């Protein structure tokens, strides 16, 4: 949870940096040999990053001999034709999507309010609030899961769907607040004053001026935190009770049977994310022009 938040933050900064400095520089006198070696090393690292992804896509077409989809046996399209062959797996995926949708919706409201307050107003204690918001992003996941579990035990709450939602919202709020804050910083907020001066009421100003300004940031933060929730295993593991999400299903499968449908659904999630990413990029590019 720490790490993806940082990814968002860095992408944010990277985007800003890229917008500022276009093009790239080849430094003269670097030496052709050194340059080539550097590129080869970078290429190999890229290959390393992709290796497991290749394996996952490849093994989604595998025809495993036993219960475990670990060794290559032969090509088949059967898994892709029956992606929902295992009801328990399908149910787990549906559960993950439900959890992600509900928790993201709640966290978006709470996190966005925090972000707007932090960007718009310099109020007493705002620095403290900012520092406090970083804490959930730096706490190790295993400790966050454990601490939530002790709270639920203390309160005598049964763990399950509700406690998973509570836990996910807890780690999403900071993430959303930080991402939205990074996106909406630097907007021209005097537009709001202009709207008020021109006679629009506060509500009208909010819906016609403020909201359109911040919506792209909220959408981006929402998508990333949806992905965070979908991918979370460690915290969920502690507070799930008998509720099974997609990562929890995978973890249980490791001990019993790993069907190729796990790889099929993982590849499908990857494809959907890529399409969303592409659409988002195109949309932003269009807006920039």
């Amino acid at each position: 949870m720490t790490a993806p938040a940082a990814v968002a933050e860095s992408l944010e900064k990277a985007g800003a940096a890229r917008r500022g400095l276009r093009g790239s520089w080849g430094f003269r006198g670097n030496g052709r040999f050194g340059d080539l070696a550097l590129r080869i090393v970078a290429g190999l690292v890229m290959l390393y990053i992709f290796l497991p992804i290749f394996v996952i896509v490849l093994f989604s077409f595998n025809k495993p001999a036993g219960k475990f989809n670990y060794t290559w046996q032969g090509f088949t399209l059967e898994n892709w034709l029956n992606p929902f062959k295992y009801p328990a797996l399908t149910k787990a995926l549906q559960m993950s999507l439900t959890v992600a949708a509900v928790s993201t919706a709640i966290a978006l409201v709470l996190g966005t309010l925090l972000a707007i307050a932090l960007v718009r107003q310099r109020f007493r204690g705002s620095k403290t609030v900012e520092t406090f918001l970083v804490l959930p992003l730096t706490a190790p996941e295993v400790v966050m899961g454990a601490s939530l579990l002790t709270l639920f035990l203390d309160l005598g709450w049964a763990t399950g769907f509700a406690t998973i939602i509570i836990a996910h919202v807890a780690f999403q709020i900071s993430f959303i607040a930080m991402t939205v804050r990074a996106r909406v910083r630097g907007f021209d907020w005097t537009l709001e004053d202009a709207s008020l001066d021109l006679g629009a009421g506060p509500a009208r100003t909010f819906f016609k001026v403020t909201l359109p300004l911040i919506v792209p940031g909220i959408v981006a933060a929402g998508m990333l935190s949806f992905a965070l929730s979908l991918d979370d295993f460690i915290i969920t593991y502690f507070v799930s009770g008998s509720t099974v999400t997609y990562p929890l299903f995978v973890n249980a499968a490791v001990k019993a049977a790993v069907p190729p449908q796990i790889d099929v659904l993982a590849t499908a999630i990857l494809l959907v994310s890529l399409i969303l990413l592409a659409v988002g990029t195109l949309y932003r590019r269009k807006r920039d022009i």
Partner: protein
Amino acid sequence: MAGVASSSRQRSRIAPYLMILPGLAYLAIFFVVPFISLFRTSLSTMGGSVYLPKLTFAWDFGNYGQAFTLYHEQIVRSLVYALAATVISLLLSYPLAYVIAFKSGRYKNLLLGLVVLPFFVTFLVRTLAWKTIFADDGFFVRLLDTLGLVDGRLLSTPWAVIGGLVYNSMTFMILPLYVSLEKIDPRLIEASKDLYSSAFRAFRKVILPLSLPGVIAGSMLVFIPAVGDFINADYLGSTQTTMIGNVIQKQFLVVKDYPAAAALSFVLMAMILVGVLSYARALGTEDLV
């Protein structure tokens, strides 16, 4: 008119507090209180039966002493693995981040997108893919075996666990490195060349120091999740490679010795704090010299 202005100003003074209240209240209840709860548990004694455990708060620091005596091996191992993973990740990521920042030209955005891609595949499934790649009779292990680099197998060895830790956090090293490299003013490097600095010297005296913020950020983002991780040790390791995260998880969810598990959680956080502070201090002083 004056009355309206002053009342709206008054409202705007309370407004930020009203906006941050829900989010902060949520984090207070589901982030701060759980940690207090966990801390109390770590100082409690366990009574009752296995089925109906009863925790009694008793300022029992014995749980901490016990955590050290029973699990010092796992504690040290977690530190060593996480440090190794951080160093390896830095060594692999730096050349790639460098090439993306300075030499990728118009492919920059594409390469950045590719670096983030594995993030869209569920973390557990990615780790399972490494299990396939590291399989005893797999191509990769046979190759390494022929080269004499491994002794017959890779799975269940510390290297497999460290490899998994490196892989799962690479993105969070590459992105901050890229961001800090991208920000460097190329004219500084040109200047060092003009002043007859060699390429290596320019790197050591100009590029490396200026990219230190990225090195620090990336290292922390890799170290913190790695030191508390238990998935990689669980999937890719053996009983000889268990980490502190495995112990916390097992004590909490299997053995249900809550005080011991809670004490270990605080030991883990103390380790992270000490690690991060000493690292920051080491790099900070070096920076001053």
